[in-house]
C-alpha cells in the first residue's frame, strides 16, 4: 500500500487471529469500524486505539494501528495522556459496560466533562462476559446471573443519561447489527472535536443472548426503534405513523399521526444541539418495554477541548518567557556567589 492509494477496510486488519466467540456482536462492530476508518481515509500510523479489560478490549489487537491494551477501567485515563501529550494523534477508546461504568466509572465522567478529544465506543452487552457471566452496571434489576442467583437488586445505569449528566459534548447510540447506522455514528464521532461518546448495544450470545432482541429483530425493528435525525420529527413505525410527543409535564408519549388530529407539526422535531438537556434525557429515560428505543445522536455541541486549552497555555507560557535557558531556570530565585 502507498500513501496515495485510498485504504480499504482490510488494510486495518492485523495478522492476529480474532478470538471472540463465534456469533459475538463484536465482529460486526469491528467490521463497521474498519469500514468507517477506511471511508474516512484515516492513516493507521496517526491512529491510536486504547482499551481496558474485557471482551471488547481485545479490539486493538485486531486493528493495524497503534494500540494499547491497558488495565481494567483505565483506558480513558491512558488515552487522556496520549491525546494531551500528543494532540495530533487520532485517539479512540474501546470499552465495555463493566470497564467504563463500573471499575472505570470515575474516569468516564471526568473524561466527558473535560472534553478531551477522544472517541469512545462503549460496547454495552449488559453482562460481564470475560469473567463468564456476572451482572453488570447496565444489567436490568432482577437479572439472574452466576453472582445473582436470586436476581440482581442493583438498579442499572443508562449510559446515555450518565454521559449527559457528565456534560458530554457528543452522545450517541447505535446497535451492533445496524451496520450502516453504526458506521454513520462512528463517522460522526470521528468528526467531533472533544470527547465523542457512542454507546453500542452489543449482543453477547454466550452469557446474555437476546438482550436486545425485542427491538433489534428484523420483524419488529421498525416498530421498536426510533432513529434520531437532526431537524426531523420523532417518527417511527413501519408505516411511519407513530411519533413521540412531550406532554405538558415534559413526559414523552406515543401518538399516532392522523389520529385525534395529530400531525407531524405536533410532535418533536429533533435538535441534537439543544442546550436544554431535558429533551435528550427524556428520550434516554423512556422505558424500553413500552417505548421505542432511540438510536442516533442524542446531543452534540461545540466546546473547547481539554487538549487545546493545555496547548494554549503552553504557547502563552513560551511567549511569556520561552527563552529561559535551563541555566536561567536553575538560577531563579535568590542566589549568592562563593568566590574562589
Amino acid at each position, binding site marked *: 500500500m502507498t500513501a496515495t492509494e485510498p485504504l480499504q477496510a482490510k488494510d486495518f486488519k492485523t495478522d492476529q487471529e480474532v478470538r471472540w466467540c463465534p456469533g459475538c456482536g463484536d465482529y460486526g462492530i469491528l467490521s463497521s469500524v474498519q469500514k468507517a476508518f477506511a471511508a474516512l481515509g484515516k492513516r493507521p500510523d496517526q491512529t491510536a486505539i486504547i482499551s481496558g479489560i474485557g471482551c471488547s478490549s481485545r479490539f486493538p489487537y485486531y486493528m493495524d494501528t497503534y494500540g494499547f*491494551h491497558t488495565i481494567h477501567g483505565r483506558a480513558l485515563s491512558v488515552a487522556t495522556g496520549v491525546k494531551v*501529550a500528543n494532540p495530533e494523534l487520532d485517539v479512540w477508546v474501546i470499552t465495555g459496560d463493566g470497564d467504563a461504568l463500573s471499575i472505570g466509572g470515575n474516569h468516564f465522567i471526568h473524561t466527558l466533562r473535560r472534553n478531551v478529544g477522544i472517541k469512545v465506543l462503549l460496547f454495552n452487552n449488559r453482562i460481564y462476559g470475560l469473567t463468564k457471566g456476572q451482572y453488570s452496571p447496565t444489567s436490568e434489576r432482577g437479572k439472574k446471573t452466576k453472582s445473582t442467583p436470586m436476581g440482581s437488586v442493583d438498579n442499572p445505569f443508562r449510559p446515555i443519561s450518565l454521559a449527559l449528566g457528565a456534560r458530554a459534548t457528543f452522545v450517541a447510540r447505535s446497535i451492533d447489527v445496524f451496520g450502516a447506522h453504526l458506521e454513520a455514528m462512528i463517522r460522526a464521532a470521528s468528526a467531533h472535536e472533544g470527547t465523542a461518546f457512542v454507546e453500542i448495544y452489543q449482543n453477547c450470545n454466550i452469557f446474555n443472548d437476546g438482550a436486545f432482541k425485542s427491538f433489534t429483530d428484523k420483524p419488529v425493528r421498525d416498530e421498536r426503534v426510533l432513529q434520531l435525525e437532526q431537524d426531523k420529527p420523532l417518527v417511527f413505525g413501519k408505516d411511519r405513523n407513530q411519533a413521540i410527543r412531550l406532554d405538558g409535564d415534559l413526559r414523552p408519549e406515543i401518538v399516532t399521526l392522523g389520529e385525534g388530529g395529530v400531525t407531524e407539526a405536533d410532535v418533536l422535531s429533533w435538535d441534537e444541539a439543544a442546550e436544554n438537556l431535558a429533551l435528550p434525557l427524556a428520550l434516554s429515560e423512556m422505558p424500553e418495554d413500552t417505548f421505542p428505543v432511540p438510536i442516533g445522536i442524542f446531543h452534540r455541541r461545540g466546546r473547547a477541548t481539554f487538549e487545546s486549552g493545555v496547548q494554549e*497555555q503552553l504557547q502563552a507560557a513560551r511567549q511569556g518567557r520561552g527563552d529561559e535557558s535551563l541555566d536561567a531556570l536553575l538560577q531563579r530565585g535568590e542566589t549568592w*556567589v562563593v568566590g574562589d
Partner: protein
Amino acid sequence: MTSTDQPKRGDATPAGGNAAGGGRSPQEVDQVVIRFAGDSGDGMQLTGSQFTRTTALMGNDLATFPDFPAEIRAPAGTLPGVSAFQLRFSSFDIHTPGDVPDALVAMNPAALKVHIGELKKGGILIVDQGKFRPNDLKKAHWESNPLEDETLADYRLIKVDLQKLTRETLADAPLDTRGKDRCKNMFALGMLYWLYQRDPDPSEQFLDAKFKSKPDIAEANKKALRAGYNYADITGVFQVAYRVKAATFMPPGTYRNIMGNQALCLGLVAAARKAGLRTFLGSYPITPASDVLHQLSTYKHHDVVTFQAEDEIAAVCAAIGASYSGSLGVTSTSGPGMALKSEAIGLAVMAELPLVIIDVQRAGPSTGMPTKTEQADLLQAMFGRNGECPLPIVTGSTPADCFDAAYEAVRLAVTYMTPVVLLSDGYLANGSEPWRLPKAADLPPISVRFAQPDDHPGEKFQPYRRDPKTLARPWARPGTPGLMHRIGGLEKRDGTGNIDYDPDNHEHMVHTRAAKVAGIANELAPLEVLGERQGDVLLVGWGSTRGAITGAVLRQQAQGRAVSACFLRHLNPLPNDLETLLRSFRKVLIPEMNLGQLAMLIRARYLVDAEPVTKVQGRPFTGEELDAKIQSALESCA
C-alpha cells in the same frame, strides 16, 4: 551551640531592662539552632523561611526542618494546632537541622508545652507574654502559669508582650486590630534578627514583593520587623547578640537555598530537557507531594504539561499514556497514592515504558500522619505489585540531592524503558539547604532514540526487539509511519510482542524483565564511602537519614574509631560493590525510619548480619540516638 561560652541563666524582663546588650559587641559562635513555634495561623513557617532566606544570603551553611500539623487551622491555642520551624545555621559544614534548639520562640502556651522539652538547658526562650492568660493556659493544659513559677528556671526566659508591642508600633497604621495582630510574627522575627545579627533588608524586600497589591500590609509588616529589631537593640533584653560568620568551606560557585521538592522538580525538568522530551506530570494532590504538582505547573515554558487528574489511578495512567505517545511520563504522590497506583505501575513494567513515580513518603499506614516523615514505603516500592514486577528504585539523601536523584530516575527510565520509583520523604521535601547550582552543560547526557521506520528495512516492526546491552525495547512513537504495533498488559512473545501464553516464553520474559533491572548495577559508579573501606562499624543509609548518619560517623571518626558510612542512591538494584563493603566491617548498622526494611533486603540478599536501627516517630533521627547505637555496636566488636 559549640561556643565555649555557656549562656547565662536568667529572667530578663523587657520592661525597664538596661541597655547593656546594645553596647556590647556580638559574641562569635560557629552555629546556632533556633525553633519558631506557634499556632498554625501565627505565620511560623513564613517567619522561619524568612530567617532562612536571610541566613542563606548571608552565606551560612544551613539546614531547616518545618514541622506542621495536618490540620489547616486546628482550634487556636490548642496542642494539635502547633506549627514549628527549626533552622540550624553555621560557619562550618553541617548535615542536619540540629537536635536541640539554642533558642525557642513560643508564641503561645501550647507551643511552649509542645516544644519546651527539647530546648537546651540554658537556652534562650522567647514567649509572647500576652498570650498566657488563664484561658490560653487551660487550652494548652497548663495547670499553672509557667511564666510565674519555677517551670522555666533552666532557661533564659525572655517575656515579651508581642501583641501589645505590635499594636503600639502600628497605632497609626491603617489596619484593623486583627490585621495589626497578624504582624506580630514580624516583630518576633525582628528581635531574632538583632539577636543573631541578621540583615533585615532581604525580608523587607520580600514583604514589599509579597504584598505588592496591599502596600498598607507590607508597610505594617516592615514596621513591625524594624520595631522588633530596635526593641531588642534598645532594651538590651537579650544582653548579648551572637554572630555566626559566613561558611568558608563551601566550594566556589553560585548557590541558592532549596527545598527537597523544589530540587526534585528542577532535576526532572533538567533531565527531560537534556533528553529532548516533553514532561507530562499526572498527579492528584496529596501531602507532602503536592508542591511537586504546584511547581511543575509553573514550568510550562519548559514544555512541562501538568494534569491534575480525578484520582491517583488516572494520574499514573495518564502519565503512562503520555510515555506511550513519546513524552516523559511522571506521576507524584505519597504512600496511600502509591498503593492506588500499583496495578498501573505493573502495566508500565509489562509494557516496558519509561515512567517516573515520585513517592514523597509520609508516616503510615493508611492515612497515618500526613505531615510527618517516614521511610516505610521501601518494600511497597520494591514488591507492592502483583506478579514478578521489578523496577529500579532511587532515592535522594538531602534536599539539594533530590535534584540528582530525580535526574538519575529520568535517565534510568528512558535508558532502560522502565518505570522508576523515586523515593523522597516529608523531611527532605520540606527541609532546605544551600545548593551549589550545576551548570546545564555539565549535567550528564541523556540520550533518547525513538525507533525509526528504516531501522530494520524489510522487516515488520518488533516492539520487543531488545538492545543487547541494556535489554531495553525500542520506543516507537505513535505517529511514526510503518511502526504500528500493539502492546498491553498480557504476556507477550519477546521480539514480536504478540500475545503468548507459552510456559517457556513466560519464564523467559519474567527472567528478562528481572535481568534488565538487575543489569543496571553493572553501570553504577563505585560506592562512595565516608571513611575507610574496612573497619569495625559500617552504617548504611538511604534517603534522609544521611545527615544524621554523617554527623554521628564524623563524631566517631574524630575520636579515632573505625566507623564508616555509605549512602545508597540505588535501592534496586543494589550496587555490585556493596557486598564486599558489608563484609569488610565487623558490624553493619542500617538506620532507617521504618522497622528495618532495607535491613531486611540486605540480610536476605547477602546473608550479612546487618542490624536495623529503627525509628518511627514521624521525626528524623537525632545525633544522640545514633551515637548511642554506634557506641553499643563498637562495644560488641570489642
